[in-house]
């Protein structure tokens, strides 16, 4: 069964304290690993797509990396505005050829000033 697991469930950091979020996946026919950010009361907002092991993507204080079994979202010197739930999703390909994203349960990040 396709599965995406994220850890930790919640993470509390001080402003400037770097850390990493983990996403491990068992998704058959994986074609992409996606990271999203979700703020309270809003829909998930796209951050990154990673397609092959060794690939890295960066955006401001965030860097996403991918291995054969897991992905990491590294947060460098976070600020309070980085507080959100970060969701990871795997995109398998079905017989119809269309993508269906399987989501993890997310990591709730709180950055204190």
């Amino acid at each position, binding site marked *: 069964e396709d599965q995406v697991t994220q850890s930790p469930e919640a993470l509390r950091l001080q402003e400037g304290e770097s850390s990493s979020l983990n996403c491990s996946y068992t998704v058959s026919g994986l*074609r*992409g690993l*996606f990271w*999203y950010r*979700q703020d309270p*009361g*809003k*829909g*998930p*907002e*796209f951050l990154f*797509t990673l*397609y092959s092991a060794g690939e890295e993507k960066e955006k401001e204080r965030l860097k996403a990396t991918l291995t054969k079994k897991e992905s990491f979202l590294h947060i460098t010197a976070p600020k309070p505005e980085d507080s959100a*739930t970060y*969701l990871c*999703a795997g*995109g398998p*390909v*079905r017989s*119809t*050829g*269309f*993508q*269906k*994203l*399987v*989501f993890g*349960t*997310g990591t*709730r990040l709180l950055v204190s000033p």
Partner: protein
Amino acid sequence: DTAVSQTPKYLVTQMGNDKSIKCEQNLGHDTMYWYKQDSKKFLKIMFSYNNKELIINETVPNRFSPKSPDKAHLNLHINSLELGDSAVYFCASSQGLRDRAGYTFGSGTRLTVV
């Protein structure tokens, strides 16, 4: 100009009622989705449409019926609402396999069944 818009944002209704949620996207995407997010923030796909054709129908009670009048619209009708249907429902769109930017989500509809 909102890319994926859902209405209503909040919906409170009694058990047994029938309700609809509407979704529209102005991105020109071919594929639209309905996802359900439970109280633990777990997002699970319900349906997917490509150019008005149903392509994914997960294990969802047949009280839930999606309708896509055109590729820019995907509505969700729910009959005989139950307490367990309370959740946040998200509409999303993408260009299918070719969309490396992933999904664009709406802001969600919080459904509360009392």
